[in-house]
Each structure stands twice: as structure tokens, then as C-alpha cells.
């Protein structure tokens, strides 16, 4: 039924179809709707000319305004960098070791260090700086080389066991077993003694035999009381914290082969401000001295 006719009541043509006696008027589109539609088409043409719009083989058309999302990102990054420039300059100049812990600059340093830590340090020390076997926990109060800001900064800048850096941290524990300095049963006695001074084992005949062996071979670096020696990076063997593990098996492996941990010298990679910020952050984690 496509019988178009004029509706008597309104004078408007009908669509010419009918359902259950109901017919539809063929009213034109509202003018405002139509003009809005045309306006969007004109806007779209203008937009395609002004902005990158049409994808080509390698890249899209550039657009007459020269805008690009990469360009905008670069612009905003540059703006953010510029906004931070003055505080970064101040952080690069400051002596982080003596900076007042309550100052706003220190707070800025800690926050900046938090971000820098996630990028540069978290791979080994963990996102929360809790460390892992062989990688020290930076939250605790046990430090191999010292936990004040000056010592932390020194470790960060020069790293550990970095060839070609005169100021690098360098510990030189002999491989007592591998190099034949101690016999395996002597190593077992030394391990017994170390587990005794760290209150993990009761006094035993083995530990008693280990005491003079410790004094002769280990005390030079770890100290006669086994509380460690920071100049040599020798850990405190009497406390509750073990970098590699305090059980008999791990200690035997440590004495036999020694441990040679490494850390990059970060001054090759990071600028002075970031090194100061990292120092402040690590010091703020709860173990700083």
C-alpha cells in the first residue's frame, strides 16, 4: 500500500503506508536538525584539513595546523620539566648529607626519589626496597657500608665493585674453601661459631673449635666481636639480618666461596639531582642513620 495522499487534518502528505488504520505523516526533517547536520559536515571537512585525519601508507596527513599527539606530549613534557627546573636545580646543588630533614626541599627529594627508585633500583631491591637474597633490604637498620646520607650517597655514586672507579665500594672476602685456606671440617666449625654468636645455636664443641679459627681468619674484617666492619663492607654476624641467609647450608656456601655482590656506579647514568633524591628516599625508609 504505497498510496501517497494529503492528510486532510494537517495538509501534510502521508508516507503512503498504513498499519491497522494508522498512517504516517511525511513531515520534513526539522530545519534546525538539518542545519546542524550540514554544520557538522562542514566542520568535519574543516577538521580534516586542519588536523591529521586521513591515514596514508606510512603516516596520516599532517593537517595545516601542524598539531600531533606526539608534539603535544613533547610540549607538555617540556612544560612539566620547566616547572620542575628550579627545584631540580636546587636539588642538584644541595648537600644532601646536611639538608634539614623537615625542609620542603627534603620532602620534594623524598618524593622524587620514590619515583626514581621505581625506575632504577626496583629491579634488584624490589619496588618496596625490601630487597631479596643477595640484595639488601633498604628498610632495615643494618647497613654494610653505612646508613647515613653521606654513606648512602657515596654507595650510590660509586657503586659496589665497579672496575675503574677508585672510590667504589670493594669488599674482598677470601674464598676460604675454594682456595684451600680452610679445610671443610674447619669451615663447619666456623659456621657453628657464627651461628652461636648470632644466637641461632647453643654452644657446641664445634663452635668452640671455631672460635680461634674465626679470630685468626675472619676477625680482621668482621671484628673480634663479629659485629662487622663497615670500612670493609663486612656485615655484622651477630644480628638477626642475613643478606644471603643464616642457615648452616648457606653459611657454609658463603665461607667456602665468599660473596661478591655488585651494584652499578649510578653517576654514569643519573644526574646529581636524581642521586640526591635517591639518597633522601633510601634514607627515609626507616633505617636511615
Amino acid at each position, binding site marked *: 500500500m504505497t*498510496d501517497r495522499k494529503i492528510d486532510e487534518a*494537517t495538509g*501534510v502528505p502521508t508516507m503512503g503506508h498504513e498499519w491497522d488504520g494508522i498512517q504516517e505523516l511525511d513531515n520534513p526533517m526539522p530545519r534546525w536538525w538539518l542545519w546542524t547536520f550540514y554544520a557538522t559536515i562542514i566542520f568535519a571537512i574543516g577538521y580534516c584539513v586542519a588536523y591529521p585525519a586521513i591515514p596514508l601508507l606510512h603516516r596520516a596527513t599532517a593537517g595545516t595546523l601542524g598539531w600531533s599527539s606526539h608534539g603535544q606530549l613533547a610540549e607538555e613534557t617540556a612544560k612539566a620539566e620547566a616547572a620542575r627546573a628550579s627545584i631540580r636545580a636546587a636539588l642538584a646543588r644541595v648537600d644532601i648529607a646536611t639538608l634539614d630533614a623537615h625542609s620542603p626541599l627534603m620532602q620534594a627529594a623524598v618524593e622524587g626519589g620514590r619515583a626514581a627508585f621505581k625506575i632504577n633500583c626496583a629491579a634488584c631491591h624490589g619496588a618496596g626496597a625490601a630487597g631479596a637474597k643477595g640484595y639488601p*633490604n633498604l*628498610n*632495615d*637498620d643494618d647497613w654494610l657500608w653505612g646508613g647515613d646520607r653521606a654513606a648512602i650517597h657515596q654507595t650510590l655514586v660509586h657503586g659496589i665493585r665497579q672496575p675503574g672507579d677508585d672510590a667504589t665500594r670493594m669488599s674482598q672476602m677470601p674464598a676460604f674453601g675454594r682456595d684451600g685456606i680452610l679445610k671443610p671440617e674447619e669451615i663447619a666449625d666456623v659456621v657453628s661459631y657464627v651461628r652461636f654468636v648470632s644466637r641461632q645455636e647453643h654452644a657446641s664443641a664445634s663452635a668452640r673449635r671455631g672460635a680461634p679459627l674465626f679470630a685468626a681468619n675472619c676477625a680482621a674484617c668482621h671484628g673480634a666481636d663479629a659485629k662487622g666492619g663497615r670500612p670493609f663492607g663486612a656485615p655484622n654476624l651477630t*644480628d*638477626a639480618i642475613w643478606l644471603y641467609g643464616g642457615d648452616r647450608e648457606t653459611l657454609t656456601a658463603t665461607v667456602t666461596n665468599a660473596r661478591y655482590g655488585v651494584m652499578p656506579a649510578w653517576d654514569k647514568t643519573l644526574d646529581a639531582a636524581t642521586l640526591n633524591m635517591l639518597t633522601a628516599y633510601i634514607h627515609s625508609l626507616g633505617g636511615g642513620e
Partner: protein
Amino acid sequence: MNMPPSGLPSGPRKLYVGRTDIFPRAIDGFYRRLKWAVMVVTLAIYYATPWLRWDRGAYAPNQAVLVDLAHRRFYFFAIEIWPHEFYYVAGLLVMAGIGLFLVTSTVGRAWCGYACPQTVWTDLFLHIERAIDGDRNAQLRLKRAPWSVSKIGRRVLKHGIWLLVGLVTGGAWVFYFADAPTLAHDLLHTEAAFVAYATIAILTATTYIFGGFMREQVCLYMCPWPRIQGAMLDERSLIVTYKDWRGEPRSHGVKRSEDSGDCIDCQACVQVCPVGIDIRDGAQFACITCALCIDACDQMMEKVGRPRGLIDYATLEDCKAEAAGAPPVPVIRTLLRPRTLAYFGIWGAVGLLMVFALGARNRLDLATAHDRNPLWVRLSNGDVRNAYTVKIRNMESRPRTVRLTIDGVAQGRMWDSLSDDHKAGRAILLTVGPDRVDEHRIYVQAPAAGPAAEALAFALTATDGSPDRATDDDRFDRPETQP
């Protein structure tokens, strides 16, 4: 195939009726004066409020009423509301809603007729129009008159003043959102924020359009309230009523007979109506009960020497009773009845509840977050240390010293990471800035022997004698396996 029904007009039929201009005639009388008074009071409140000062000390703005969007605070005289206390505003809205029910069920659409901004500003625009163009008849003549220098001049003057009123209206609005004197200075020196100018421009336009052109159409087509009236009004609500039992049949001028009613069909009630209706058609949704027709009719009744009140405020019930010969009922009886008393009771209860809640509200808050990475740290002496981020919210506009205490973990000691008093104990004093949230990093240290997770509750109390107190339950974690 439907044949067109016979008897229809041959030309196309219009589905909509265009607006006919309304030129209400000026009138004086009791209700007109009441409207003047309400207009003066409401406009004075609207324009003056942002300029009232209220001393809150050095740490808070001194504007009595201020919606500080930038800092997310709302100040209302002695009351300061934080975003999380927005339920007070919700309570005010509940009160406004119930108050509207209360008013409607007693005195009908008094809000529409007197206090609604649309009514007040339309009224203002009408007065300006009359001051420039003259009263109803002069306005009608001017509309029909051909364009002349005088007509153009009047039109320019009228629209200019309307726009000026709109500008002042929008200009007053923005002062609620910033320090008024500062903003006024900035506005005049074109130093204010763009959003201030944009808001003023939008409100100028809406005031000009709503007050100058749309007028009663806002009430008829845009506002939902007239439609809700049907549910809110009952036969004992006061409405503006034409007493047809007295007025009918109408007489025209001198043609008056014995059985004629009091209505002389002078059209005065129609000419003064700002909505353009005839109240004699009976109660209708378009009537905003501005009561100007009462003034007009009373004036006319006095002139022709008949009793006033042919058109009057009355309830439908009383109208019926009066028509049957009963004496008029005092207005107080429409106010005191179960329905209105129930509304008043609910309205008052919500109000009292809010006043009570406002008086007893806590001006300190505490939120603790346990470090997740790492959950715990083993220290060289074998103890375990946990770290917490403690947020202290001080809602008073002054710095305060507060006491933070821990409950649980018997041998636990706590200290603030930035304090020099290491491992201070189970209670520490902290200072928190005025009207802000301060964050502290708190360490708690305890021996390693103990459950892997132990309940630890933080409590915050004021040291200045105020009863403010806040608590937060947290936990203390230890390594699962003991070495």
C-alpha cells in the same frame, strides 16, 4: 482507503497555538504591597548576602556565605561544611521539599505567587516595562504603532535596562563563589577568571530571556511544580477563588437586573493577571496565586458599592459552605489540620536532627593505611617494624595538637618518622595544620614473637579539651615463619 471525514475545515489545521503577548495592568492593593515587600526582601537577600562578613580567624575566609569550589569548602556563617559532610545540604534539600509541601497544603502556591525567582524577576521586568512604555493600554498602543524615533528609543531603553538587570543578577551570583570584594575589583579590572565572566554572561542571558520574553511560559511549560499541585492541593488548601455563587450571572455595565450577580464583567481581574488567565473559569494550573486579581476586583467592588471578596483567598470546602449560606471561616483553621501538622512535624524533625547532628559532629578524623610493600621489616635486634601512613583531618580553622595512641600489640612502640624522639612509646603528640589533612608516616616496632597478624587500633584525641575523637582499626604483621 479512508475517506476524509466530512465537516473538517478545508485548510490545514494548526496543532499549536502561538503565545499572545500579555500586558498586565498596574494595580495597587494589599496583595500588591505584600508582593512589593517580598520582592524587596528576597532581592536584598540575594544581592547583599555575599557581602556579609564573618570572622573565622586567620586561617579561613571571612565571607559569611561562600561556596569555595577551589578548596571544596562551604561556609555558612558559623558552619563550615567539608565535601564529605554534603549530607547536610541533602538535609536542607529535604527540608526545602517538605517545606514546599507544607506551604502548598496550607496557603497554596504562595511560593509561585510571591517568592519564586521567576515571579520576582518577571515582576521586576514588568515594572521596568511600565515605567518606560506606560500602563497596559499605552503598551498596547505602542505595540500597534509604526516604528518611529520615539518607539525605537523606548525599545532600546527598555531592553537596555532589562539587560542591565540581567547583568547585575548574574554579577551577584558569582560573588557567592569567591571573596566578593576581591572578585568585584578583579571583575572591574578585567582580571577575574574566565569562568566568572562566562557565568555572568550566561545568567545575564537567562535573566533577560526568562524575565523579558518567556515570563509565564516558564511556569506553564518548563516548571514541574504547577503539575505537582494537583497532588499537593486539597479542598482545604487556600487558593485564589472566584466565588461564582455570588458573581453569577454576570451583568454587563448598566444592564443590571434583580437576579444579576455581583460580577460586572469589567475584565479588571483578567487585565491585571500576569499569566493572562481568567480566574472566573475556576481553579486552574496556570494560576500562580499572585492575588493581583483580588486587589483588582476589591477595588472595583468598592467603586460599585458591593462587598469585597468576590475574588478572594478561600478553600474549596469553605467556598461550598459559604455558597450554602454558612459564615466565612477564619484562615487559621486551614493552617491547623492533621495534614499540615504532619508536614510541619516532619519538617521540624529533620531540622532538629540536622541541628543536633551539626552540634555533635566530629571535627577530627583519622585514616590509617598499612604499608603493603614490605608488610614488615626485620630489624637487627630481631624485632619487627611495621609502617603506617596516617592521615589526620583537622576540620577546625586553627592548628591543633592531637594525641595519637595505639591499642593492641602489647610491647609495641610507635614513633613518627620525622620525629627525633625515636621509639617514643604508645602515645605521641602530633600537630596538624588548620582546616586540612596532614599525613604522617608512623612506625610501630614490636618483638618478633607473636601472631603473624595482630589487631592494632589507632585512636586520635584532641588535647584542647574538645570531645573530638577518631579511631581506625589496623593490624600489625610479622613474618609467618620464625627463624
